[in-house]
Each structure stands twice: as structure tokens, then as C-alpha cells.
């Protein structure tokens, strides 16, 4: 039973991705999508030079891939942060990493365009999480509620800094900052997909390899140490890898919240808390969720709704549900 659930989650990005490819303003039949994909990858069908080909290969496919990878990055960072902070209510957005990374991107677009945007996103993302962690840490312990509160504070601080940048930049650049900040995949192209692979290689793959340690680290600092884990080093590695994944995601599509909170929770409810399976399935679940949310955002109305709005509309009620359901369990120590 668990095996079937796990397998379903694992293949869901491919099925949802395929559905996303034939949905849209220009109708392409499901079969034609398959034919075009096979033509591109294995050269078995010759579909000729039809307009559908350009729509699928140049526009929809990079968009679906980018949404999938970004979703996996955000959800993977979420499951990692929840594990190391032993806190089921945190994700990159709540801890302020997204806001920090967004500030790094905004100043790069506005003033420092000679610097690589992903690098700046990473630097300020890691600054944000370090701040949130330091503020919340008292007597060697990081309790749940203070961590969330300090995340809110750090998030507000970096959002204010982004506003200052918006205020100061020239109007031409302002437009691109505002549009990108809303969180959208409408500018997706193959170059973006290539950049997003950086997040997979230097974020998700190391997290995947280290995933069993999250079990031990989620027992708390003292116990993990007694079991032989170098907690300070491993925590730094986990925060570094997950922040890098979030920085890449944010630099490509702005701030998209809640994915890192919701998806690991849903997966945990379905297949249990063991990070050995939870981590890879959170990658897959995040990819599916993001592709689905993006597809809704571009098909539900005649114009495009930023995908960040869709994730917030589902995420906020979910957070309330967790709070109510968890009660003392969620807010206790």
C-alpha cells in the first residue's frame, strides 16, 4: 500500500507535466504532445514543421520543466529545514530565505548587474536564515514559535529593503523587478532550465545523499551529538544546500511561498516521516504541485495570474489547518 502511494507520487510529475503540455490557449491534442516529444528526443516520429511543435518545444516544455525543478527545489528545501529545525511549520518562505534571496536579486537587477544574480541571491538568502536562527536561539535551543516569529521579522526586514530598491531604481528596471517579484514562470526559456539545473546539482543531489541524517538531526541537538553526528557541521551543510536551491529558484521566478511547507506535509501524511523516502518524494511532490499550480495560473482565466497567488491561496488555509490540527503538538517545544 505504502509502496503504491510512493510510486504514484514519484511518477506524478511526469503525468501532470504531460497534461500541462497539452493544456493552454492553443489546443494541442494529448497524442500530438507525445508525438512531438518522441520526435524531439528519439527522432522516431517525423511530425514536420507544424506550429504545435514550436509551442510545445520552445514555450511549454521549458516552462513545465522549470516549474517542476523550482517546485522540487522549494519543497526539498522545506523538508530539509523542517527536519533540522525539528519544526513542521517552517519553510524557506516563512524563515525569510525567499525574501533575502529576493533582495539579493533586486539589488543585482537594479544596481549591480555585473554580478551573477544567483550568487547574490544565495548570499542574502543565507544571511536571512542565519539571522532568523540567531534571533530565535536561546540557551542553545531553538523553539518552534520563536523561530517562526523571527522568520517573520527577517522576512519583513528584507521585504522593506526590496521596497527601497524599487523606490531608488530607474523606472525601466523597476518594471522588470516588480514583474519578476510577483512569482511567475511566464518568462521561462531553455536558458532558465539550464540555470535551474544548478539548484539540482548543488542543492537537491547533496540533500538527497545526506537525507538519512535528517532523521537523526530531527531528534534535537543533544541527542544527535550523542549518536555521533557533528551537528554544527551538518546543519551548516543542510542550510547551505537548501538555501542554494531556494536562491536559484527565486532568481528564476521570484517569490513563491508555501510550496515548501505544504508538500512535505502532505507526503509525510501519506507515507510517513522517514526522510529516506520523504525527501525524494517531496522533490517529486513539489514538482507536481508546482506544475499543476502554474498550469492553473495560465489557463483558468484569459490572462495569466502570477503562480505565487495560486500557491498562497492554497497554502494559507493549509497552514491554518495544520495549526488547528496540531494544537499543542505543533506549538509546544
Amino acid at each position, binding site marked *: 500500500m505504502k509502496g503504491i502511494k510512493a510510486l504514484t507520487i514519484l511518477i506524478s510529475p511526469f503525468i501532470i507535466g504531460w497534461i500541462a503540455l497539452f493544456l493552454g490557449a492553443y489546443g494541442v491534442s494529448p497524442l500530438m504532445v507525445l508525438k512531438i516529444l518522441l520526435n524531439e528526443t528519439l527522432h522516431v516520429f517525423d511530425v514536420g514543421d507544424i506550429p504545435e511543435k514550436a509551442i510545445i518545444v520552445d514555450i511549454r516544455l521549458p516552462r513545465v520543466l522549470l516549474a517542476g525543478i523550482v517546485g522540487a527545489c522549494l519543497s526539498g528545501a522545506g523538508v530539509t529545514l523542517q527536519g533540522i529545525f*525539528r*519544526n*513542521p511549520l517552517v519553510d524557506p518562505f516563512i524563515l525569510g530565505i525567499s525574501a533575502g534571496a529576493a533582495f539579493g536579486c533586486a539589488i543585482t537587477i537594479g544596481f549591480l548587474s555585473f554580478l551573477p544574480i544567483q550568487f547574490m541571491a544565495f548570499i542574502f538568502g543565507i544571511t536571512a536564515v542565519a539571522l532568523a536562527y540567531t534571533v530565535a536561539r536561546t540557551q542553545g535551543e531553538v523553539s518552534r514559535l520563536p523561530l517562526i516569529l523571527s522568520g517573520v521579522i527577517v522576512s519583513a526586514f528584507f521585504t522593506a529593503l526590496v521596497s527601497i530598491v524599487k523606490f531608488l531604481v530607474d523606472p525601466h528596471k523597476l518594471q522588470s523587478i516588480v514583474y519578476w517579484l510577483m512569482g511567475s514562470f511566464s518568462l521561462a526559456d531553455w536558458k532558465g532550465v539550464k540555470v535551474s539545473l544548478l539548484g539540482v546539482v548543488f542543492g537537491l543531489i*547533496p540533500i538527497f*545523499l*545526506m*537525507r*538519512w*541524517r535528517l*532523521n*537523526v538531526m*530531527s*531528534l534535537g541537538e*543533544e*541527542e*544527535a*551529538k*550523542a*549518536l*555521533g*553526528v*557533528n*551537528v554544527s557541521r*551538518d546543519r551548516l551543510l543542510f542550510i547551505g544546500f537548501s538555501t542554494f536551491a531556494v536562491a536559484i529558484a527565486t532568481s528564476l521566478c521570484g517569490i513563491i511561498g508555501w510550496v515548501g511547507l505544504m508538500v512535505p506535509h502532505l507526503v*509525510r501524511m501519506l507515507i*510517513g*516521516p*522517514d526522510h*529516506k523516502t520523504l525527501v525524494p518524494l517531496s522533490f517529486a511532490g513539489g514538482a507536481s504541485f508546482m506544475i499543476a499550480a502554474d498550469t492553473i495560473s495560465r489557463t483558468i482565466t484569459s490572462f495569466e495570474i502570477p503562480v505565487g497567488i495560486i500557491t498562497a491561496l492554497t497554502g494559507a488555509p493549509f497552514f491554518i489547518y495544520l495549526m488547528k490540527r496540531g494544537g499543542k503538538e505543533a506549538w509546544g*517545544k
Partner: protein
Amino acid sequence: MLEVKELYFRHKGEKRDILKGISFTAEKGLITTILGPNGSGKTTLFKCISGIWGNYKGEIKVNGISIDKLSYKRRAKLFSVVPQDHEPAFPYSVFDVVLMGRASYVGIFSSPGKKDYEKAETALELVGIRHLKDFPYTKISGGERQLVLIARAIAQEAPIMLLDEPTSHLDFKNQINVLKKIKEIASLKGLTVVMTLHDPNLASLFSDKIVMINSGNKIAEGSPKEVLTEELIKRVYGIDVVRVSYNGKNIIYPNL
């Protein structure tokens, strides 16, 4: 064999020593109990020995070799620690919890292998809780949880097992069951067991050696018979007691 020599400890920025030069030894295959009233420094001593608080003065030796500067990983191969209260953030299965005892054997970029799974299975078997294997750790009783943590310590395969108040949250039956299990495993596996207790009667029933401490000083060290005298209990706990003998063991009976 574990040797603690002249151990001093104080918290950063405080003037008062919590441990004031404690020395004792614990032998292989035997249970050594650190006994003392609340606030006597038991838990501090426990945390120093288990390596959670490293900034103590003094020396801790295992088989004659100083362990003060060992990495967490090497330390975990010498000491297994059974903590007092334990609430994981996530409802791991009992088996997953026991498997975590293998952390010091698993490389940073890998997961437990076949051998680790076998060791965890054997540990569950030895403690007699195999039937709990797939239960969520958060849904079993306090006594069962304590046994799971003992199984985890066994899976860790360290020669010294440290237990912090293994009976503190348990009812009468479970207190006896857990301590009996600890005694059985200590002699079966030839472990050096060091535990803290605050109940002199449980200490008397289950220890081979008692180290009595009070306000950071060692008061006495020796067999339960030598240490638990009426006079000493009166001095340390401040109540009037009578010592009663039954079946070769002594019980401390408060004068009501």
C-alpha cells in the same frame, strides 16, 4: 572500564561550580548508579560524561585512554546514551528510531546498509520489543519508549551505556521491568552501565555500585550495602529513615 577523575564544571559566566571535583570508576559488566537528590549535580555529571557539555575541567578515561578531545563520531562508538525524556518532532516508527543508533557508522553522504538493518533487528529482539517494530514511536507507552531507546543504544554497539533517570516517567511496574532489562543486558553483553537515579530503593535493588553525590560533591562510593546507611541517607536527603533487610537486599524505609 570508565574512569572519571577530579571533574569540575561550571556554566559559562557563572561563579559557582556545579561539580566540585568528582572522581569515580565504573567496571565492565556491572551497573554503577549515580544517586543523589534533585539538584545534586547528577544530570550535569551525566552530561559531562556523555560529551554534551565539553567545557569541564578534569579527566574522563575509557580503558586508560583519555576521551576529552574525541570527535562526536568516535565518542559515540565508546558511549551510548539513553536520554531522559524524548519527544521526536515527527512520528518515526520504532524501527526507524532504533536504526538511528547506527548513525556513527553511516557516512555523511550515505544511508544505513544491510548490516545496520540487521543490527537494529537484533537489538529489538534482544530487548524483546520486536512486535513494536512498525508502531509509531509517539504512540507507544512510556515504558515501551524507554525500551526502544535502550534497543537503540544496543544497536550503537558501544561498550559503555549511559542512562539518565531511566525510570523517571514510568509507573511502578515499568520501573522494575526496565531496570531488570538493563541488568540482564549489562551482564549478557558485558557492558559498563552508568545510570542516574534519584530513588535510593531502586538504586539499592539494581546497582552493583553506588556513587552518592550531593551539591556537586561525591559523598560515598561503594556497594549498595556500604553506601546506603541510615546515617548517610539522613545526611543527604534530610529525612529520618530505617534500613530494612529482605532477601539479601536493603530497603530504605522512611520513619513516618
